[in-house]
Structures are given as C-alpha cells and as structure tokens.
C-alpha cells in the first residue's frame, strides 16, 4: 500500500498562530539586531537572525503563502539597510523561496524537536546562500566569491544558534 500523507502524525503538525504585535515586531527587531548589533561584532557577522525568524514563522504556520509573504517582507526589510550597491529584492527573493520551502516542508515533517530544527536550519541556510549567490551572480552580474567551507561553518553556527532562537520564539506561539 503506498504511503500517503505526511511523515508525521496529524497531532504533530499542529498549526500555530501569532498575535499581530508578534508578527510585526519580531521580524523588525530581528532585522534591527542584525544591523545594529550582530553586524558590529566580527565573529557574529555570519549569524543571520532574519533568516531564522523566516524559518520559524514558516514552519510554525505551515502555510506556504504566508510563509513566502513573511520571507518577502523580512528580506526586503534587510535589503533596505544593505547599502546602495545592494538593490532591493536580493534578500527578498532568497527569503521568499526559503519561506515557501520551509512552510511546505513543515506540512510534511515534524519540525518541533531540536534535531529537526537543526537540520532544516542548516540545509535552508546553505540554500539561502546559494539563492543569494545565484541572484547576485546570475541576475545582477556581481562578482561573488563562493566558499564551501565558509558556508558550511556559517550554516553550522546558524543551526546551533537557531535552536536557541526557536526555543525563545516558541513563547509567542498561540494555538
């Protein structure tokens, strides 16, 4: 008999909602912390807080449309502060695809435990960097340097920090 449905039970794919203040302020605060705190500390510059928030909202709501809209909004917000050589839409496109993919994946598998959160954050971070590289290099013709080792280490750092961030953001979930 062929397998149909998700890889987890119906109970485990609970859909969460968030209050409007959380939907507005969590991404905003994440972008501001990224710009004004993490960017100023050299060894934390690889941490991408807006990316983690996008993943969190996408897998918690399990709705691809809201996932890609959230990713688009957070990405564009990141683009706004990235300087004149960085056209609006580079992070927007990357996080739109990540938001859509994460919410689609959230429909299929359990993303509540730390192990699965670590894995999806790691994989999606590599995908995010790849999409960004593709947009910058392919669409805009910018010279970008791709380093597998750097991406792998950054993904690892983001995955570890992501577990803590997700744990903190779980407080804002509403059934």
């Amino acid at each position, binding site marked *: 008999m062929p397998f149909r449905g998700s890889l987890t039970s119906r109970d485990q794919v609970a859909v969460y909602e968030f209050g409007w203040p959380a939907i507005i302020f969590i991404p905003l605060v994440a972008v501001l912390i990224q*710009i004004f705190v993490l*960017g*100023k500390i050299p060894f934390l510059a690889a941490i991408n807080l807006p990316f983690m928030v996008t993943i969190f909202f996408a897998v918690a709501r399990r709705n691809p449309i809201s996932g*890609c809209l959230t990713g688009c909004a957070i990405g564009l917000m*990141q683009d706004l*502060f990235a300087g004149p050589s*960085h056209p609006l839409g580079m992070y927007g496109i990357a996080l*739109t695809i990540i938001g859509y993919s994460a919410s689609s994946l959230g429909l299929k598998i359990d993303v509540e435990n730390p192990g699965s959160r670590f894995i999806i954050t790691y994989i999606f971070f590599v995908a995010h960097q790849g999409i960004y590289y593709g947009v910058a290099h392919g669409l805009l013709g910018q*010279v970008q*340097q791709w380093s597998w080792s750097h991406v792998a280490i950054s993904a690892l750092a983001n995955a570890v920090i992501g577990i803590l961030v997700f744990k903190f953001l779980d407080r804002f979930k509403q059934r």
Partner: protein
Amino acid sequence: MDTFLGRYKNLIVLAAILFVQIIALAVQVHRPTQGGDTRLLRLWAISAVTPVETAVVHAQKWVNDSWNNYAYLRGVRRENRELRAEIERMKVEDARYAEDARMARRIQALLAFKEQYVDTTVAAQVIGTSGSEQSRILYLDKGLKDGIKPDMAVITPAGIVGKIVQVFPDSSQVLPINDQFSGVGAALKSSRLQGILRGSSNGVTTLQYVMSDEKVEPGEEVITSGGDRIFPKGLPVGKVVSVEPGKDLFLNIRVVPSARLDQVEEVLIVTKITERMPDGKDLGPLRASDILAERLPTVPAKPEVDATGKPKPGAASGTTPGATPATGTAAAHAGAAATPAANKPAIGGLSPAAPKPNGAATAAHGAPSGTTAGSAGAPKAPKPAAASGTRPAGTVAKPLNGTGTATAPHANTSAPAPGPSPANRPANGNQTPPPSKQSKPAPEQTPNTNPQQPSTPPNGEQPPQ
C-alpha cells in the same frame, strides 16, 4: 480553471511574488540611483531607525565611558609612568624629525610643490552595519545636517576607513575599503609604486594593477596616492601581507588595512581638503641662488687655477663633497633611463606611473647643485641616496650597470634602497663609479629629458645670481 488555480494556488502566489521582485531588480539595475540620490523607501526606513539607534549607541557609550573613566581606573598610575617615559623618548625623536620636515618643506617650497592638507573633519560614531556579510556598509550618526556629503573620506588615526556613499538627514553610509565595490588610489610607501586598492565579497583587500616585474615585499606599508581625488595623499592604508603573481601581468598583493574595519567605532569624516603651498615662514630665508639653481640651466664652471696655473684640487666638486661629477652623471642618467618607465600607460583611470618621472627628473637635475639641489630628490624618494648631495660620492648607491651607465629599472628608484639588489651596488664593487664615467665632461652628459626640469651641470657650482 478553478480547480487548477486552487490546486496550484501556492505556487502561483510564489511565482507572482518572485516575478514582481525580479522586475523590481531589473528596474533598479536599469535606472541606478545617481550619486547622492537614494530610494525613497530606504530614506524612510533609515530615517525612522537612526534616531533610536543613535540614542542607544550614545547611551551605551556613556555607560562605557562612565565605567572606564571613573570606576575602572586600575593600572592608570603605571600606564601614566609608561606614557611619560614614551613622551620623553618621542621628544628626542621629534627633534630629529623636525629638522627633516623643515628641509622637506623648504624643498617643497622651492619646487612649488602643492600639498593636500586635511583642513576640517567631523567626528562621527559608527551606529550600525548592513547586517550582512555580502555588504560591508557602515552607518554613521552624522548626516546632511552636519555638512556631510557623498564622496567624503572617512578616516581614523590608524588609517583610512572608506568613503561616504549616501547621506541622510541624520546619518550617512560609509563604503569601507574592504567592500567589493570599493576602490582607492594607493601606493607602496617605500617603492612608490601605485595601484588601486580593492575590496572583495569576503572582505579581503588587494592592491591591484602593480606590474608583475616590480619587486614588492610583505610588510611594506601602503598609503593613499591621492589619485582618486577623495583621500588626501599619504594617509596610511595598510600593510602588504602577501605577494603572488596574478593574472594579466599584474601582481596580486594582499593588504591588511591599518584601521580595524570590523571593530571601528569612532571615525573622522574629512569635510574639507585644501591644497596649498607649504608654509615657509619658519624655514629661514630663501636665497635667490637656491631657486635659480633649481629652475635655471647653468653652464659648467671653469676649474679654478692657482697661481701656477694648475687646477686646484677639489675645485670642481663645488661646495659639497657629495656633488661630484660622477654623482651628477649617475643621477642624470638615472633620470634619462627612468623616462621610459615613467611613460607606462595609466591603468584604470589612475596613473600608477604618474609621479615617477617627477622624482626621477628631480633627482637627475638636482643632484649636482650642492646641498640644496642634492636633496631635491628627497620629497618623493624615501632614501635619497642617488641624489643626496650631502653624502660623499663613494657612499652613494648609484644604479650603475656593468658599463657604468646609470640605469633605473623604475623611475622612483632614483634613490634605490640599500640592500642586495644589483641596482644598489656600484658597478666595480668599490662604490666608486668607473673613472671613465667620472671624468666625463659635463656637456657630454645625457641631457635631462624632462623639459620642466632643466639639467644643471654636475660640478655643483651655483648658477650666476
């Protein structure tokens, strides 16, 4: 149809959002903002966030200052003692440098050499970054209201940081020198080779467009060349850490910036640069003979004769022991030989070879005319050996080749640094040029090829006043 839309609703929404963003990207690439302009969305976003961030950063600084200046004073007495000792040591050094500076300014005045001075600066605090590894933009808490404009240089005492790219009412964006879109006119401090300092997406800065046949050593200091018309000439940029052969006949010179770009907190924005002649008030009276010695061609002096009609020994060497005919010959040849090197094509809008003929020609014409002219090579060349009229001729490191003819592999090497380089060694090994060249009569010397700097005779005689 409804079934199709319902079934692929998610994908259609995704495609629509991506399509809109790609079109927006294309529009931005097609119509880039001009210098100083900015997207309205960015202006609103940054203007909204800046006051809050400025307040937070200043509050944080106040707390830090309070702690460091009032509470945490451990070790201050010891540090004070050490600083006092250092001041004493620096006073001694200062006296030595002051004399060098006076001589350099005097020579600059003689040559009508205009120098760029940082006139006014505005201190600013770094309040934020772009927040991504791909863009290294910094945000400062000073903007239009403080007189900041695009393309102003941003520096620290340690070295240059970058330039202003966009200005908002209360803040501004700095493009650091390690950003991939940055380019700074830079030069190597000792060899004076010029190139363009570029950043990269991973934050590594490289000095580009230095020919691969040039010799560049790790550890060499890099300074601004002034060629970009943004940074004043001579500001520290960084140090060379590695040199590798690159593509297209250029070296790949990796440079570590002097300023800690990833930890910079306070900076100075250069709001005004003035170009003026060095102040010669405190330099003592200038003699007309000095100016004429620099600017006018002279005739060779007849050797003085004594009562018996024999030439007096040493009369031809003028007033300075270093200004021997050999020195003048070597220096003049160096200037002549340097000309082809100085005619290298300019690269990338900046001319790496631009200042080369100046230094070489100066050395060539300046060497024979005693102390004043002999030092004329000094402003450009850090080790004015070839043109130094104050050294005995035997100690001058003349770039002679095997035939005794002066060569200059690089125009700026008119004053080659001492070392194992063959160019620094005299041809015959005893630091004295071959007699045939030494005794070469002045009119037969290779003429100075620089029309701006006519040659003076090698005998060191002052021109008629």
